[in-house]
């Protein structure tokens, strides 16, 4: 059972470059999320999607965009990367209203130089 797959697992990127972090789930969850994890700050929500075709902004959306063309995929794009976007990015999905549990991928470590 794969659960949530994120790619790449690690990437070094020059400032100003465009980057897309991929996220795929095989659990048919309606809700998907992107978080960034920074030391001492815990996890902060970047964008979310309650269902295919809809997206919403989280706590720290600036500089990021997402799309949700289908249930399984939820890519996160950095249009023009900046050093402050150096972080570990986690994709998560949720079963929705009944359980509240989030299922996380293993993370993508991004370094912007």
């Amino acid at each position, binding site marked *: 059972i794969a659960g*949530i797959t994120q790619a790449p697992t690690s990437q070094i990127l020059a400032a100003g470059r465009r980057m897309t972090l991929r996220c795929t789930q095989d659990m048919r969850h*309606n*809700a998907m*999320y992107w*978080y960034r994890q920074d030391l*001492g*700050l*815990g*996890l*902060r*929500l970047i964008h*979310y999607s*309650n269902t295919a075709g809809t997206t*919403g902004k*989280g706590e720290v959306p600036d500089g990021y965009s997402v799309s949700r063309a289908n249930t399984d995929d939820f890519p996160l794009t950095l249009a023009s990367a900046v050093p402050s976007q150096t972080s570990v990015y*986690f994709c*998560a999905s*949720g079963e*929705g*209203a*009944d*359980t*509240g*549990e*989030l299922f*996380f*991928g*293993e*993370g993508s470590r991004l370094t912007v130089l």
Partner: protein
Amino acid sequence: AQSVTQPDIHITVSEGASLELRCNYSYGATPYLFWYVQSPGQGLQLLLKYFSGDTLVQGIKGFEAEFKRSQSSFNLRKPSVHWSDAAEYFCAVGRTKAHNFNKFYFGSGTKLNVKP
């Protein structure tokens, strides 16, 4: 505004000793509360959750947590820690179920070290 505070950044306990990790929240309505664990290099895994009812909830791996409304707390406990419990622990509060939990707020985490 909603917030979650984990006042302890690092905690070290001896194997076999008891453990309590603190979590305080600020939320205007009845909260939905969670504890997640993150092992090194891994994503987060749900330990337990509180929605309503009995204020003492049991989770996986022998963990439990108690919701105390009067103290706005949801502390995580384990009576006897194992070396494999060394990890980072995150408390989280979620918005109402009707909003599909798109408003989770995580604490900054507590890193647990276990001494042999």
